[in-house]
């Protein structure tokens, strides 16, 4: 049993060890380094370059990226998503939806993709994407994913599905407020208005210290308040407007609504209270501009015409000032000052650059654009503008690089060209000598390996022994056919001599064979060194050649591509900039039109207030006159009596 456990443990351990990559891929990790700093362009471009080289390899499985290939292929799509490259046919979509990575990683990216589609008001794409999320989901987005799915259902008019999903997460702390609010919207969308109102009421009572949740609570109360106003139930609406915090993002609209609700109830004094607070706030706000007209209207209802006339006068002055400001802003935008101000580096480096746009010193129009700045279309357009601006700068700097490369290539060519012919000649000589020596070595190695099977002592004869044997052979030949009487004696001596030499060779055969093998090993070592030097030489020669040859076409093509890209970027930059300016101007024009309407109303109301004030004054005077006369008459009568009496 114990043995089994050991074997099982070993098997498991081996599997883990086998699955783990031997080395980290430094270039892929470098791409991650940029991605973690949100420099997605650099990250994508580095992985692209690395993958390009990897796919050009003869044996890619020997490269360290081999172990990270799936991750790299997925990451490239993932980073493209972060870089807002989510085109339907793009590789980001393919990688994110079909990537061969862990479920949690893929689903996290798919969630982000669905969110982008949802924000860009492409509900069908968003639905298709979110429906492809299967398997394990990362804990951090578990509830956010459900909320997003429900919101996508709402966008696609699938209210029943949204209600079912939102009901299941309504009380989850991670989506506190949001699920509840969206559930109310889903009920209203599903024509279950009563349930929707109850749900909004419930959302409007959520207790939290989170600013975002408090904002959604305020929003629920505001929506409910205005809904009740629409349904002509102002007495109920007041309660919801009063629930909204006075320092929250919806406070201005709440104060305005509260006043209108009181006014509808003919509680004019009650309407004045919130409106007076609102009237003191920033006049660029639409609700504040509305209340400048509402406040004197309430005073008018209270028949305080003088005060009303003064306030209408103030409103007219404020409107004129704001119209002037708006005209200046529109002029500034048309002159390109707005874009000049927003693309400044110092603003973009700040994490809160979008919020800081409110305080751009040279662009007063941004105060009026807060609502627009908060919209997804504007933000995305602005980010695109920034990206294009960055791309333009990159292309411009790369153009300089290519000029430098051309210069380097020219210098290298001038240096190497005269050196090559001499170097080539020497190399040819060295190459032929090396080939000869390698052939010799091979012959010796073959012989030694054959001698292991069939010993050949003669192959191991030393030089002096070989010379002696040669000499003996020639003497032997000479005396073989000789009639010399001493030939028998000489032949015997020759045999003895041959015998001595062969004896030595035979008896020392093992030692000599070992010695020969050792020498061959030593030779192999030298040969290896020689080969390395040879390879280095070949590679250096190749590197020298490659350092200036074969770049002209590539550089020319790159230059062309860069020129086309630059022209296109400039065009798109102008179009994107124009679009942003148009969005801003449209917004400002809309606000301008509204102020003009308010101005006309204010003028009429001012005149009317004067009339009423004058009329009231006249009435008072008439009344006073009448009263005076009456008093006079009553005063006179006793006097008359007195006079009469006196008489």
């Amino acid at each position: 049993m114990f043995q089994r456990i050991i074997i099982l443990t070993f098997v498991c351990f081996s599997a883990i060890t086998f699955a783990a990559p031997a080395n980290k891929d430094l270039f892929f990790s470098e791409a991650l380094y940029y991605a973690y700093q949100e420099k997605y362009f650099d990250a994508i471009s580095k992985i692209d370059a690395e993958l390009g080289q990897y796919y050009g390899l003869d044996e890619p499985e020997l490269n360290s990226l081999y172990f990270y290939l799936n991750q790299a292929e997925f990451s490239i799509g993932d980073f493209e998503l972060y870089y807002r490259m989510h085109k339907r046919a793009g590789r980001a979509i393919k990688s994110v939806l079909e990537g061969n990575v862990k479920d949690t990683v893929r689903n996290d990216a798919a969630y982000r993709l669905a969110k982008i589609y949802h924000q860009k008001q492409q509900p069908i794409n968003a639905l298709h994407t979110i429906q492809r999320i299967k398997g394990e989901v990362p804990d951090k987005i578990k509830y956010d994913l459900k909320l997003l799915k429900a919101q996508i259902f709402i966008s696609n008019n699938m209210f029943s599905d949204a209600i079912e999903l939102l009901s299941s997460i309504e009380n989850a702390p991670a989506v506190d407020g949001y699920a509840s609010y969206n559930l109310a919207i889903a009920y209203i969308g599903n024509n279950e208005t009563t349930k929707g109102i109850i749900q909004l009421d419930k959302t409007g009572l959520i207790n939290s210290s989170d600013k975002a949740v408090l904002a959604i609570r305020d929003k629920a109360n505001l929506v409910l308040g205005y809904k009740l106003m629409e349904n002509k139930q102002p007495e109920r609406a007041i309660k919801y407007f009063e629930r909204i915090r006075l320092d929250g993002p919806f406070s201005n609209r709440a104060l305005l609504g509260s006043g209108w609700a009181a006014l509808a109830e003919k509680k004019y004094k009650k309407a004045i209270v919130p409106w007076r607070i609102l009237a003191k706030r920033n006049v660029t706000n639409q609700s504040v501009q509305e209340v400048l007209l509402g406040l004197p209207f309430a005073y008018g209802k209270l028949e305080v015409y003088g005060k009303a006339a003064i306030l209408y006068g103030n409103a007219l002055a404020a409107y004129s000032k704001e119209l002037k400001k708006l005209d200046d802003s529109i002029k500034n935008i048309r002159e390109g000052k707005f874009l000049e101000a927003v693309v400044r580096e110092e603003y973009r480096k700040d994490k809160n650059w979008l919020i800081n746009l409110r305080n751009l010193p040279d662009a007063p129009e941004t105060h009026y654009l807060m609502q627009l700045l908060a919209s997804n279309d504007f933000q995305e357009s602005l980010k695109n503008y920034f990206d294009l601006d960055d791309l333009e700068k990159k292309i411009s700097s790369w153009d300089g690089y290519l000029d430098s490369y051309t210069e380097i290539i020219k210098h290298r060519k001038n240096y190497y060209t005269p050196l090559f012919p001499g170097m080539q000649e020497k190399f040819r000589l060295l190459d032929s000598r090396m080939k000869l020596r390698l052939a010799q070595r091979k012959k010796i190695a073959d012989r030694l390996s054959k001698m292991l099977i069939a010993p050949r002592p003669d192959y191991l004869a030393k030089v002096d022994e070989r010379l002696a044997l040669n000499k003996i052979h020639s003497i032997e030949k000479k005396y073989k056919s000789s009639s010399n009487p001493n030939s028998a004696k000489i032949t015997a001596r020759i045999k003895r001599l041959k015998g001595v030499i062969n004896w030595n060779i035979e008896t020392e055969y093992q030692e000599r064979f070992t010695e020969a093998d050792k020498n061959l090993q030593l030779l192999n070592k030298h040969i290896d060194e020689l080969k390395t030097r040879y390879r280095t030489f070949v590679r250096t020669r190749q590197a020298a050649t490659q350092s200036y040859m074969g770049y002209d076409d590539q550089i020319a093509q790159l230059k062309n591509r860069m020129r086309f890209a630059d022209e296109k970027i400039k065009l798109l930059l102008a179009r994107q900039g124009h679009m942003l300016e148009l969005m801003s101007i449209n917004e400002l024009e809309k606000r301008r039109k509204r102020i003009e309407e308010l101005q006309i109303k204010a003028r009429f109301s001012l005149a009317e207030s004067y009339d009423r004030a004058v009329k009231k004054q006249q009435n008072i005077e008439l009344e006073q006159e009448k009263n005076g006369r009456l008093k006079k008459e009553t005063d006179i009568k006793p006097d008359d009596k007195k006079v009469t009496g006196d008489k």
Partner: protein
Amino acid sequence: MNKIQTVFIGLILLLIPLSCWSAELTREQIKGLDEQVQDIKKDVLAISAELQTLEEKLLYPSTSQISLFVSTGNEQSYSPDAVQIKIDGKKVMHYIYSFKEIDALRRGGVQRIFTGNILGGNHTLDIRVIGRMGGSKTKRKASYTIKKGIGPKLVEIKLGSGSSAIKIVDQ
């Protein structure tokens, strides 16, 4: 005739900006432009990748290329402030880290701190690191011998706390 033409062109020129500024934006226009921006991003990314390969081939051929990488792992208690690197006694890099870069290193990113050219054979690599361990400042140095062969030389410098504060992984 010429006068009429001039007046007519003048009128058109006057009208162009007006029509330009008064246009209403549609969702399709916004989407269309967004997609064109995505297309140009794709083109520029392709140029960038090719340029990187060209740069490497041209400026740092494999026979002489050396690349030094810095990693820290996910150790939270240690963060490098600055790194100085010398090859054969010659200063090749002095780098000061930003908060974002330290965070990227901690999350597993690896920084290519230096790419250059050296001759084949042995070389001395001197590394000095100033960092923070908990709240206190630390200064560390280490020296290694690296061997440059035919192929590109990749060296990972692992920074961290503990006994092996600076570790070299010769790839």
